[in-house]
Each structure stands twice: as C-alpha cells, then as structure tokens.
C-alpha cells in the first residue's frame, strides 16, 4: 500500500503570532482558509478573537502548551485527537499539553462545525502543518540567539538542541519567536517518526466528567437567569388555537406565560426553509419560571386548544404510501450501469426482497436545551450545538439583528447523533429572550425531546437481482423514503462497480413530520438491507457469503470509475481480518455467526456478530470488528467510538421503534422507547488494519454494518430471515424448539 506523501500543501497566511503581555507566545490559525489580512492577534489571553481565528496555541514561558479550540465535543473524541496532531509536529510531550474549550467570553466566532467523522479527515494536514510551523518559529528563534543555521538545530520534547549540544527550552525563546516571520510549507514527519499519533490519550475532559463539574449546556448558568419550558404542538400538523394559563400562573415560581412563533414564521417565506425553521415557526406557549421544576410544572398546567392545519399523519399510511412508491414508476435514477431490464429479462432466476425501517428519534442523553440573553446591544447564545454559524445567521434573520451583534458559545454536548445539527431549540430560546429581555435557559423534558424532535425518516428498500449461469448479472435497488433520499456518493457504494447491470432508483414521500440526519444518514439502514440481501443471494447461489463478496470485489479492482470511492483492496483487508479474528471458519457449536462488510464515511469496516439461543430467543453475544480508518490517531479514543457505534447499531436494529398516530408520536420516554442496555450489549472486539494512509472518521462507520451482521446471525440461529426493523418483533424461531 502506498505511503502517504509529505505534505506539499500550501498554507499561505493561515497562521499569525503575537507575544502575550503576560508572557509567552500566542499563535492563532485558521484551518481551512487564510487569516483575514486585518485580523489582529490579541496580546491578552482573555481576548481570544475566534471570529478571526479557528483556534489558538499558547506556549508559555515555562514551556506548557495550551490549545484553545472552540470546537465542541459531542462524544467523538475530536477534542482530544485533534490537538494530538498539533502536538505531534510541535514536538512537545503530550503531558505538557492542555486543551481548553475556547469560544467563551468572546464576541463572536464562525465556521465551527462539529461533524465528527469528518473532523479528523479535514484537520489531518492543517493541524500538523500548524504544529510544524510553530515548531519551526521556535527553532528559528533559538538559532538566531545562538547565531547558527536553523538547519543545525533539532527540537524534541519541547527542547531545542544545536550542533554543539547546547539547549534551549521552548519557553526560553517564545518572546523572540513570536516576532519572527511565519515560515511556510514546513515539511511534515513521516508516519514512522510519530511519537504522539498512534499512542493512547485519555479524553481531555475526563477529570471534569468523573467529578461532575459543569461542562454541558444543561449545566450553564448566569446571574439573573430564568428558566423556560415550551409547550409545542403535540401532533405534527397542529397549530395553537387558544390557551388558558390561569392554573399555570398559580404555580409557585412561575413568572410569566408568553407565546412565540410569529417571528420564525417570517423565515418560512424563504425558499426551502430548513427544518429548524419549520419546527420553531408554529405558535407555542412558553412558561417562564424561577426554576426548571416550576417551568415544567407550569407547562403541564397549561390548557391549550390545538387545531389542525395540515392533515394529521399516521405511520400506517406512511407504510402503505412508501410501498406504493416502490410499486410505482416515480423514480429518480441515481446510478445506472449496463441494462438491468435486459438482465432481468434474460435471468435464470430473480430474487426480490423488501426491507422496512421505522422512524427513529435521536434520544441524545442530554435533552435539547439552550441559553440566550438578548438585549439592545447583544444577542448571546450558549449551549450544545453542532452548527453555530448557521445558528448565528438564522437568529440574525429571526430577530432582525446584525450578525456582528450575535455570539454563539458552544458547550460540551451530551450526545449529538445528528440532532444538534438543527438549531430549532436555540432559535426558540433566542425568541423567548427577545420577548422577555432576560437571560433565559430553555430546557426540554425527555417527553418534549422525544416527541417534538427531528427523526430518522422511515425508509423502505426493494432490491432485485438476476442470476444467470450461477452469477449475479443484474442488481436494482429502489429506495422509498420520507422527506428526501440518499445523497452524495451513497448510490456508488459497494456493490456498485461489481455488477455489470446495476441501477439505483429513489422516490420520496412528502410528510410534515420533521426528519433529518441521524448517525450515518441512510447507510444506517441501507447497510442492513443490502448486506442481508447479499447474504440471501449467496444462499440462493449456494456460495459462501464471504467468498461471494471477495469475488465481487475482484471485479472492482482497477476501476476507472471516479465515483467509486471505496477501495476493493481495503475492503478485502477488513474482510480477511474480521474472518480470521472472529473464528468464522471454525464455527463453534451453538454459536451462529453473521458476516457483513461495509464502506461509508470514508472508512472500511467488516463485522461478524455471534448469536446464541437462550430460552429460545436469539442473543447477541459478541461482535468482532475489523476497521481500516488509515492511521489511528488515538487508539484509546478510536476503540471507544467503534464499540459505541457497534452497540448503538445493534441496539437500534434490535429495539428501535417509533411511529405516529394522528400526527402524534406513539412513545415519549425511555419507559416505552427501548434503548439498548448493559445486559443486551454484546462484547465488541476491535482490530485495525494497519497502514500509513491518512486517517478517516470513526463516529459513524461502524454503526451501519452492525445491524446487518446481527440480522444474518439471527437468521442462522432461527432459520428465519428478517426484513423489518426492529428485529425484536420479527425474529421468532421457525419452529419452537423444546
């Protein structure tokens, strides 16, 4: 496999330096763009201007390195792994690096998006280049002091050494270094020389997490802050007609009852308004109180009358309509190779199956919440959000305020899974604070969170394949999904490129249920459908399912198709590793193994699930995962992500169920909504394919194959194929044994 080459990537003007008034050197940098020519570097550490810079590095006179990044943490470990990239090239010891969440106490900043799986991929070059440039400035300063050529000096563990063996610590030269010109295109290390990348680093917030210190949006508090609880329409399609707040106002601690929604409605006129706008544009009743509990009680005491605006939807109808879309002709073709029609017409045998999935809520452990303080000068927003820039823009329109007046500060997030890409809850609280002109925090109850959210859309796939002379000659995938369809390169994932006649068609059903990204959008269910189908095809063809995939991959090797981004060689690598480590070729009595391999979010994964029968029920005991994500920056964090993705994938495939009756969600809390728990969580064994390729993300790619591997293992255990999620309702054994 080819070595990744040293960077030749030009980063002109992406970094600036200053000497801090309190001592030490400060470096400000931008990840993806050059710094604005006018961007001034602060000399006061409390005045970090994240509007102009993505992040700062402070090198103190005692040699300690502090990285200030406003990049939030949603649980994917990027707050730890990204600074590791800087430290690697800066040549400092990881124990002397402190990472601080920036963004607090600043006027405003932009361009910060936490898309976990992507962060490490995009930051890989830029962050190392930043560290290398800073190191070179320090080396240059030391060389100047010694009056020697910088080339004769080396830097290691925060100490610079010259040819004569003299040494200077980074802290000794920060003053001069800060004043030097910024060197460009510094050469980066070869992977074999890494000392920090590839080593285990513990989550940088670990001490605060285990001692319960304030970190999350829900923990944020300011003097004079009040609490808000929002009564939203109980059913999608309803609007507020009237309400009676008499009882609510009698509750101790309730300060006021207001309505919001009018301002957001103005935004609806824009072309194609975002879901967040749609969610916050209906009239809502808001209870303002002196405590969360009073606000929640107040909300329960509101008597509201709702009327129907658009028809109330039922999942039963969604199901019928999605199936009739699959039966119909209203498709858009996303990829077409050869002639599937002809292949089907000439086939010896046709296999066709339909796979179905429900809506799913995100259920972030920390319910949606946000803080806002709106006054004549400023609009300050603080909380857990993945898209602060978009939020600032929409609040600017919403409240008709200049963008410069708006600041968004990010807290640590108690889970994201896609939900916190949508800023509806933050827009709501901005409108609330605009009305009451007080600092206020909106807190959703779990019921609010689960029933008035954004959902993974219900989707159905129909896959049809033709077989001729023992080979797969044609393959057609049809998708019918609520509100939108698969996008980007998904139609070009495996087995695209491996089958001569191949077609992907999509159709969409419009609904007023708000839907959106959910951990590994589309592939979270598509993987199960396709991989289960391939397993069934292997059975029909009387082929070994692993060998059948390896044979198909042979046909993709050397492809000239630019849209095929998965690598057949890398998929082969993870397949062989998973097969070897799981003992797939040497099955144990009573253990049923399901195999799946998948590529998404630039990472190649293979998984084998082990299922046993206990009390005539299939139980998932273990999942063996082989991952090729290039260089593993922080194995300790990476394995955590992988284990989480697998168990989450198993959990939602087994138990995740959510539907609508008369526009209302059929469950509203963890009592009725079943999330996987410790007892049901399989043991996850993780193995990496080792190579020197650029790192790819891990937040998402291990989730999609998990459901597929489990469904195949259950099929072996029970004799029944599963065509519907959740599996728990569809996995009864063929014959009741015993």
């Amino acid at each position, binding site marked *: 496999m080819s070595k990744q080459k040293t960077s030749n990537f030009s980063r002109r003007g992406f970094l600036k330096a200053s000497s801090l008034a309190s001592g030490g050197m400060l470096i400000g940098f931008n990840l993806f763009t050059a710094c604005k020519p006018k961007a001034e570097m602060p000399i006061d550490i409390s005045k970090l201007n994240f509007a102009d810079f993505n992040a700062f590095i402070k090198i103190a006179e005692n040699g300690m390195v502090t990285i200030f990044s406003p990049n939030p*943490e949603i649980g994917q470990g990027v707050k730890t792994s990204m600074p590791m990239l800087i430290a690697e090239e800066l040549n400092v010891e990881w124990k002397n690096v402190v990472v601080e969440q920036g963004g607090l106490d600043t006027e405003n900043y932009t361009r910060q998006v936490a898309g976990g799986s992507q962060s490490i991929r995009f930051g890989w070059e830029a962050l190392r280049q930043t560290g290398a440039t800073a190191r070179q400035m320090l080396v240059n300063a030391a060389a100047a002091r010694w009056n020697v050529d910088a080339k004769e000096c080396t830097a290691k563990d925060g100490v610079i050494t010259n040819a004569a063996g003299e040494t200077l610590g980074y802290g000794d030269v920060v003053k001069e270094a800060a004043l030097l010109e910024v060197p460009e295109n510094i050469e980066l290390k070869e992977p074999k020389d890494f000392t920090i990348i590839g080593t285990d680093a513990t989550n940088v917030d670990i001490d605060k997490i285990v001692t319960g210190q304030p970190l999350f949006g829900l923990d944020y508090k300011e003097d004079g802050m009040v609490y808000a609880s929002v009564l939203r329409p109980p059913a999608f399609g309803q609007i507020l007609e009237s309400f009676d707040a008499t009882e609510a106002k009698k509750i101790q601690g309730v300060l006021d009852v207001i309505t919001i929604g009018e301002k957001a409605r103005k935004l609806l006129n824009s072309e194609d308004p975002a879901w967040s706008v749609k969610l916050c544009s209906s009239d809502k009743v808001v209870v303002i109180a002196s405590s969360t509990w009073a606000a929640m009680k107040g909300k329960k005491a509101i008597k509201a009358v709702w009327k129907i605006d658009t028809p109330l939807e039922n999942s039963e109808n969604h199901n019928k309509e999605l199936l009739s879309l699959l039966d119909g002709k209203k498709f858009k073709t996303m990829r077409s190779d050869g002639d599937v029609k002809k292949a089907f017409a000439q086939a010896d045998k046709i296999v066709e199956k339909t796979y179905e999935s429900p809506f799913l809520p995100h259920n972030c*452990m920390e319910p949606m919440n946000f803080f806002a303080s709106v006054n004549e000068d400023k609009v300050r927003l603080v909380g857990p959000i993945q898209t602060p820039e978009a939020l600032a823009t929409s609040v600017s329109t919403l409240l008709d305020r200049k963008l410069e007046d708006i600041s968004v500060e990010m807290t640590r997030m108690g889970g994201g899974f896609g939900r916190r890409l949508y800023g509806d809850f933050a827009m709501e609280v901005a409108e609330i604070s605009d009305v009451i002109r007080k600092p206020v925090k909106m807190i959703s*109850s779990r019921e609010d969170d689960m029933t008035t959210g954004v959902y993974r859309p219900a989707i159905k796939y129909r896959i049809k394949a033709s077989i001729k002379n023992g080979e797969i000659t044609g393959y057609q995938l049809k998708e019918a999904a609520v509100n939108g369809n698969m996008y980007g390169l998904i139609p070009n994932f495996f087995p695209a490129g491996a089958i001569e006649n191949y077609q992907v068609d999509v159709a969409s059903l419009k609904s007023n249920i708000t839907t959106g990204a959910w951990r590994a959008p589309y592939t979270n269910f598509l993987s199960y459908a396709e991989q289960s189908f391939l397993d069934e095809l292997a059975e029909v063809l009387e082929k070994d399912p692993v060998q059948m995939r390896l044979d198909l991959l042979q046909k993709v090797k050397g492809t000239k198709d630019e849209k095929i981004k998965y690598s057949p060689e890398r998929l082969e690598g993870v397949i062989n590793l998973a097969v070897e480590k799981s003992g797939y070729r040497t099955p144990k009595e009573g253990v049923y193994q399901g195999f799946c391999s998948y590529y998404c979010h630039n990472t190649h994964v293979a998984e084998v699930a082990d299922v046993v029968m206990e009390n005539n029920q299939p139980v998932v005991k273990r999942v063996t995962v082989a991952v090729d994500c290039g260089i593993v920056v922080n194995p300790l964090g990476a394995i955590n*992500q992988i284990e989480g993705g697998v168990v989450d994938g198993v959990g939602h495939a087994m138990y995740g169920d959510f539907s609508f009756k008369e526009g209302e969600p059929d469950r509203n809390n963890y009592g009725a909504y079943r999330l996987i728990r*410790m007892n049901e969580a399989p043991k996850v064994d993780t193995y990496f394919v080792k190579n020197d390729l650029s790192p790819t993300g891990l937040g998402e790619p291990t989730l999609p194959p998990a459901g597929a591997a489990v469904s195949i293992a259950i099929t072996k255990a029970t004799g029944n194929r599963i065509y519907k999620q959740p599996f728990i309702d569809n996995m009864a054994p063929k014959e009741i044994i015993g």
Partner: protein
Amino acid sequence: MATFNLSINGKSHAVEADADTPLLWALRDHLEMVGTKFGCGIGQCGACTIHIDGNATRSCLLPISSLEGKEITTIEGLSTDGSHPVQQAWKEVDVPQCGYCQAGQIMTASAFLETNPKPTEEEIKVAMNGNICRCSAYNRIQKAVAIASEKIG
C-alpha cells in the same frame, strides 16, 4: 414554599423550594451542584443517580420533603479530587464518550461495590442495567466496574 434542611456531601444546606421539588432540580437549580444529570425524569435512565444513606437512588423522582435527616451523596461528594476507586477506574479505562451519563453510572457502580465488592461479570451487568448510556460505552463501563472492584479489594 418552605425551607428544607438537606445534608449533602457532609454539609447541611437549606433549600427554599416547593415540597414536591425533586432532589435533582434542587441540586441543580438551587444548590449549584450540576454533576447530577437529568435524562428522563421518570426513573428509567439513571442519569440522576445519587446515594441516600449509601444506597443508589434516582433523584428525579425524590421530593425534597422526604429527605430531611437522610445523608445524601452526589458525584461532587464521592471524592473531592476524583480519587474514589470508581472514579480512578473510570479514568484508567477512559470510559466516557459524550460523558453525560457517567456521573450516574459512577454513582450506581460505587454504591453497588459497597454491597458487593467482588462481583462476577453477570452481577455487574445486572447492577448496571438501570443506567442507560446512549453512546453505548457499555463495554468500558463493565470493565471499569471490574477494575474498581480490584482497587477496592
């Protein structure tokens, strides 16, 4: 509103609130102790777990009026510096993903190990089953409880 005297982490606190206010919200809103988390409010997820006289209890369903004379321990009081064996094990294993559920997990684990310092794998699973981790860090939670048990023993 009335005043309730609560003994939390070895100190006495006067809380002025409605009698039905759950301890969870008294801690978070009135006493500035935000380590105890809100997850479901119906006793299903364990994010709000604290100790009452040493027993792991859900604070989201516990009115403050029922707590006078009881000794309450929250995550902030488990140790002042994160040195409790369970916290140590959590750090060693690097358990958290988003971290939101972890205070509750640690409180459940620490009370459990008091009653059963040498649990089997199966006993750990049963004891921790009431605490949801939406990030599904279950493999590591289980491992950390086992390591904490060694540290205690």
